[in-house]
């Protein structure tokens, strides 16, 4: 009575043709190499790498947009860009950098590292994980096609109503923004559900919550922020889309609507968003600093709890973005106070990092440089942030370049420096070779200098009264000099990013003549370094039993009789060999890609012609049902190098269980059939 599918293939299978038909429309993809394997993979490591690569691509797109803005502003009365083009560029620069660069890089690290740091073989729902990535990519591409279809969104990344209404922004740009970010929102939401479940449920034996690596902790808090913040943005965007596409009245002031509603909804999402961009970087830095200071992190529980506190309090400060919007003195006072309070847990972290370095034997490799860069640059940004908490000062600073300087110091000087450090730190684990130190140091110093030259002067410009989002300025205001400086700085940043790209290729080429990097190039502390570099497909040969925080370090070092800590083993000795047998991994699948392809089609349909929507919905339904009837785990197929199915029983059970139940839900639209996914799994149900 099983549903046996005899139809011919609709997509190339990519590998050897398998003799028996399997459930579902497509034959089960089997390749593990080549470009097709990337399209169908459900491996958290490959998905993490794709997240990172896509985010770097969008970084370059957003960076080019930034350079165009800086060229326009380099001199007074610039004519390089029209006002309209300028509006589109700063809107897309902000949107791209936030939603398509910083958030996905955070997701890249979370995807790659969480399962490794907690000793899991994959995430809880591998196919949903693939869905997340493709959904993000589809959203990003959809949003960027607006450039070619009548103009990009032009209302700022926050798209304040009623300025974002059809009257003030008649092109489809903001519709692309709405729908593209809703699609990317599915990715965030599905990813959040998936990773929260993973961290709660799939930790290695013995790894209690307070023995989890800090990166995993911070990523977990991030996922909770996403979980609760993204739906609010979705609500706001649905309302705006209803207004723009179907003439609803949510932000129609004539009909009595209150545009402040948009600001509230947007910033209820928007402020947690700020923290969910920075927290992964905080986690990365908290991993790097102890390793390169050769000391344990100072005050692990403080770091963890301050991270949780930042997450909680992040939901209580949103209206400080609205001090100048007329929300009333009581609200201003309350949010002013809560904003000052949130500086406390952040300060705790800064102190912990400083104390971690204090008295340590510091090694100034590139990851460490970037980590220190984060600590210092973020501190500057944090301090200018506290000045915004003071409402009267904020009223002066709102919508000036002072704000621009502030948030670039926290998001660029904070998050991005942390991510760069993370790239240099984990690169050997991911790709099996180290990035060149010489290029790395060049990369760091140019970034540091370029960054400060660009954004430091903006503090001055802002205090002088230069407005954000205005496409040019007159020569008499005294803005000219610092604007020119900032533009020069922007090109130094571009040079730095270029040097990173060069470093990647240069080091890869050079690595072929170097000895393999080994599992533990940095003398690290957490268990992801116990697997060979690059990480084998099955992660751990055998999941280690965790007895303490920094498990890997404790396996390498012990106290001798005199009570002095001595190295008792090298990383190579402790690490696993990577030839795990009997490891059964979840099977790749086409369906997440098919499902997500429908989203942009539905989006274009909503904008242009309704029956294209119908096509999209049909693809969506076919994709979901294909997903549902496909057995989550292909029982015929071995996955590990020597899959003998006999030993390692719990692992096999775990792998099949976790895969089996993929699909519990992603988001409202898909929730339907995805859920019956579990239902379909048992292929031999003994039911009458």
């Amino acid at each position, binding site marked *: *009575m*099983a*549903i046996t599918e005899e139809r011919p293939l609709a997509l190339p299978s990519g590998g050897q043709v398998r003799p028996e038909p399997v459930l579902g429309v497509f034959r089960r993809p089997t390749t593990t190499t080549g470009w097709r394997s990337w399209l169908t993979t459900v491996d958290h490591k490959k998905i993490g790498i794709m997240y990172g690569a896509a985010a770097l691509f969008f970084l370059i797109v957003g960076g080019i947009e930034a350079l165009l803005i800086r060229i326009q502003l380099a001199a007074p009365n610039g004519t390089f860009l029209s006002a309209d083009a300028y509006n589109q560029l700063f809107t897309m620069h902000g949107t791209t950098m936030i939603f398509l660069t910083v958030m996905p890089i955070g997701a890249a690290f979370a995807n790659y590292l969480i399962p490794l740091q907690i000793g899991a073989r994959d995430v*809880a*729902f591998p196919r949903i994980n693939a869905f997340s990535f493709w959904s993000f990519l589809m959203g990003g591409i959809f949003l960027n096609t607006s450039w070619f279809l009548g103009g990009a969104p032009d209302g700022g990344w926050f798209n304040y109503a009623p300025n974002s209404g059809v009257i003030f922004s008649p092109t489809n740009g903001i519709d692309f923004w709405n729908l593209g970010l809703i699609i990317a929102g599915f990715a965030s*939401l599905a990813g*959040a*559900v*998936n990773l*929260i*479940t993973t961290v*709660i*449920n*799939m930790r290695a034996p013995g790894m209690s919550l307070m023995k989890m690596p800090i990166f995993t902790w911070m990523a977990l808090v991030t996922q909770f922020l996403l*979980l*609760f*913040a*993204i*739906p*609010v943005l*979705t*609500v706001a965007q*649905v*309302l705006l889309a*209803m207004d723009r596409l*179907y*003439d*609803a*009245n*949510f932000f*129609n002031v004539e*009909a*009595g*609507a*209150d545009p402040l*509603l948009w600001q509230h*909804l947007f910033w209820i999402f928007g402020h947690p968003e700020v923290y969910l961009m920075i927290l992964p970087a905080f986690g990365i830095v908290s991993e790097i600093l102890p390793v390169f200071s050769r000391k344990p992190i100072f005050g692990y529980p403080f770091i963890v709890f301050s991270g949780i506190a930042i997450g909680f309090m992040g939901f209580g400060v949103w209206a400080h973005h609205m001090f100048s919007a007329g929300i009333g003195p009581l609200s201003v006072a309350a949010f002013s106070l809560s904003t000052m309070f949130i500086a406390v847990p952040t300060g705790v972290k800064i102190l912990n990092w400083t104390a971690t370095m204090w008295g340590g034997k510091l090694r100034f490799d590139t990851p460490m440089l970037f980590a220190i860069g984060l600590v210092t640059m973020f501190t500057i940004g944090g301090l200018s942030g506290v000045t915004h908490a003071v409402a009267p000062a904020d009223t002066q600073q709102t919508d000036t370049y002072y704000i621009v300087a502030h948030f670039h110091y926290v998001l660029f000087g904070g998050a991005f420096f942390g991510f760069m450090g993370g790239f240099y730190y984990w690169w050997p684990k991911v790709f099996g070779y180290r990035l060149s130190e010489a290029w790395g140091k060049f990369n760091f110093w140019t970034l540091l200098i370029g960054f400060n030259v660009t954004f430091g002067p903006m503090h001055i410009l802002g205090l002088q009264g230069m407005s954000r989002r205005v496409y040019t300025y007159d020569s008499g205001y005294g803005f000219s000099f610092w604007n020119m400086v900032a533009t020069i700085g922007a090109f130094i940043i571009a040079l730095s990013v270029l040097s990173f790209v060069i470093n990647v290729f240069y080091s890869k080429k050079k690595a072929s003549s170097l000895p393999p990097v080994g599992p533990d190039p940095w003398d690290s502390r957490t268990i992801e370094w116990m697997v060979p570099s690059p990480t084998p497909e099955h992660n751990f040969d055998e999941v280690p039993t965790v007895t303490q925080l920094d498990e890997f370090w404790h396996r390498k070092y012990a106290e001798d009789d005199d009570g002095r800590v001595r190295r008792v083993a090298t990383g190579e000795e402790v690490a696993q060999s990577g030839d795990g047998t009997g490891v059964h991994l979840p099977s790749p699948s086409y369906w997440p890609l098919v499902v997500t392809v429908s989203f942009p089609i539905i989006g274009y349909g909503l904008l242009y012609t309704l029956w294209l929507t119908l096509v999209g919905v049909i693809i969506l339904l076919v994709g979901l049902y294909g997903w549902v009837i496909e057995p989550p785990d292909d029982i015929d197929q071995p996955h590990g190098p020597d899959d003998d199915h006999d030993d390692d029983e719990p692992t096999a*059970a775990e792998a*099949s*269980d*976790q895969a089996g*139940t993929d699909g*519990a*839900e992603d988001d*409202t*639209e898909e*929730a*339907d*059939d995805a*859920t*019956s996914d*579990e*239902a*379909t*799994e*048992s*292929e031999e*149900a*003994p*039911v009458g």
Partner: protein
Amino acid sequence: MADTTLTAPEAGYDPDHHMGEHATTTGISNNKLAMWVFLGSECMLFGGLISTYLLYKDRVPEGGITGRGENGVFDIPFTSISSFVLLMSSLTMVLALSAIQRADHRAFRTWVLTTALLGSTFIAGQVYEFTAFYREGLGFTTSIFSSAFYTLTGFHGVHVTVGIVMLLSLFVLSIRGRLASSRAEAVEIVGLYWHFVDIVWILIFTIVYLIP
């Protein structure tokens, strides 16, 4: 008598599945945890829509369409009945779950189909209601009240529809013999979603319809 009750629970348990559940750190099933995490997130979604409605409901011109205020178009007795139908579908849902857990597949199919039918009745009622309101002159674009009302209840209606599709899928799977009682958890997860949708309607019914 005694032996039947002893054997009944054993009927469809699949040891593999059982073992899989214990592979998790907490012993909690991944699927159920994920569903609850997702429902936590849904609270923010419906909270936003309900708040929008609350903010806008009284900001309408005096008198409104019918002279009784905009929400004068509400037909409380009618909506009460359809609310009651949805509420009772939660009972049939939970009975379906209980049936499949004791491997009573006939009862399961009856109850799950009943749940889907009750849900469809509710949706039919909503469609009728929307049409009636529209005829009385309350269109989607009429006022900020109407936009907020239709968006909130429409969003809920979409959720119910999605739930009906899931229930019917379960029914079809059961008919085709692919829903062993070892997979009762799938029913439980659909059930969680269904009850959540019902809970949201409990809120909407009170906040939108009953509170004057």
